[in-house]
């Protein structure tokens, strides 16, 4: 009894049990006597019942398929009524054999995977110590710059605004579009500008934010290049070499300059603050 119990638990499903029965017979799947197999299978199910073992639904489905195959064969060929809709190719015996062959192959593949699994436990990768070279160059910096950080701030501000549309529209005389024009004008006139210069005359935080967002927008549109010559150095802003003369400028691309900078502006971080009266810079 205990032996049976162990065996029942080992079977992964009805196909597994069938393969076990076939193996016991020492015949090829193609050669198996399906009627006999059906009988043995049902016998097993019956035993499981006797031992009060829980029988999974799949076993019962298989049992009924086998019963059907068996009953079909008990009739002389001329009396076998073709089941409605059953075509020649759908002989349930073929279907079962096909399923068994396929399952058997995957079961074999699974055991090969198991071998690989056990083997991998004993495979150790070479893990050499760290190489050291004399006069090692300073640690390379991560592929990131202050502008990545600023862009991140910008993203936060933008999303923020989306989350909070109940807020009043920020009223101020500064718009990002104005600031884009302002920055482009400065750059065209002088070829370049220091980051800090752009903010020197800002009247208040609203203007700073507008200038800041305008700058990010221009960088995003690849109109400007920002560079930090050395660590702790000034951030320089220059016209991008390959920037089309006016392509990204607000005038030439009104849709974009309206669509993108404006919402960023309207996040209105300073709402409710008593803004200092904006001064013309």
């Amino acid at each position, binding site marked *: 009894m205990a032996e049976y119990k162990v065996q029942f638990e080992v079977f*992964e*499903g009805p*196909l*597994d049990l069938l393969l076990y029965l076939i193996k016991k017979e020492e*015949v090829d799947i193609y*050669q*198996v*006597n*399906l*009627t*006999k197999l059906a*009988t*043995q299978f*049902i*016998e097993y*199910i*019956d035993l499981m*019942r006797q031992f009060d073992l829980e029988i999974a639904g*799949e076993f019962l489905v*298989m*049992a009924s398929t086998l*019963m059907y195959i*068996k*009953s079909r*064969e*008990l*009739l*002389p060929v001329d009396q076998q009524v073709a089941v409605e809709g059953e075509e020649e190719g759908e*002989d349930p*015996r*073929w279907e079962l*054999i*096909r*399923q068994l*062959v*396929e*399952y058997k*192959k*995957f*079961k074999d*593949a*699974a*055991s*090969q*995977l*198991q071998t*690989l*699994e*056990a*083997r*991998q*436990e*004993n*495979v*150790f*990768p*070479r*893990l*050499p110590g*760290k190489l050291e070279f004399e006069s090692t160059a300073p640690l390379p910096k991560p592929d990131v710059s202050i502008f990545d950080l600023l862009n991140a701030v910008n993203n936060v501000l933008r999303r923020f605004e989306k989350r909070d549309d109940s807020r009043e529209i920020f009223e101020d005389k500064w718009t990002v579009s104005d600031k884009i024009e302002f920055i482009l004008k400065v750059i065209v006139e002088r070829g370049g500008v220091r980051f800090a210069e752009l903010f020197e005359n800002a009247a208040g935080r609203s203007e700073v934010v507008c200038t800041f967002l305008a700058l990010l927008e221009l960088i995003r549109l690849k109109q400007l290049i920002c560079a930090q010559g050395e660590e702790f150095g000034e951030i320089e802003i220059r016209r991008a070499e390959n920037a089309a003369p006016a392509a990204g400028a607000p005038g030439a691309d009104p849709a974009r300059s309206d669509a993108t900078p404006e919402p960023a502006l309207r996040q209105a971080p300073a709402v409710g603050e008593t803004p200092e009266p904006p001064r013309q810079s």
Partner: protein
Amino acid sequence: MELKFILESLLFSAQKPLSVKELRDVFAAAAEAEDADATTQSLAKVKDSEMTAALEQLAREHEAAARSYRLACVAGAWQFVSQPEYAPWLKALVGQKIRPPRLSQPALETLAIIAYRQPITRAEVEQIRGVNVDAVMQTIMERGLVDVAGRAEVVGRPPTYGTTALFLEYFGLSGLEGLPAADELRKIVVQKPPAPVTVEPGLATTPPEQLALGSAEGTKEETPETPASGS
């Protein structure tokens, strides 16, 4: 300087497996060094195909040398690894490898089906295994061996599943083509034998009670072990 030896020295010194792409980046970076010589510069843009050929050549050479280690390609990345038979001493040196518990039989079967038949839906896996696979799918997905691959173009657009890079690493496979008997299992053609084995005509007269559950005893005696006998 032969490409394969440069590759070998890189893999020898690397602290993790290196892909062809990563190796290519190293060649490019070396060529950019201030003091790069002509050889280094000439190798700035090694073709991937050339690199792969050299790596495969290397692996063959190490295989032939039959030493205690070999060059392996796992999940598309190359690395020197020990031969398994030296594990007892390596365990003593570096400690037992930390690996998750071994996979159960159902998990292995399900994995095998997904590996060979991906992308595949859960229903298709169940059809092959003949049992419900909900629990086992959850296990292998939690272990990161299998992931959703897309959606099947059938009614309900059920998700399809495929194996991950971790699957390849876990089993030490270079790629899906490295699966044992991959070609055969991807497409199993079941050939119809001339005729299925049926019972002897005599059985047709078996009394109906034998069809009942548990009535097998009688049948056994009447059904010959092999089809050839009896009739």
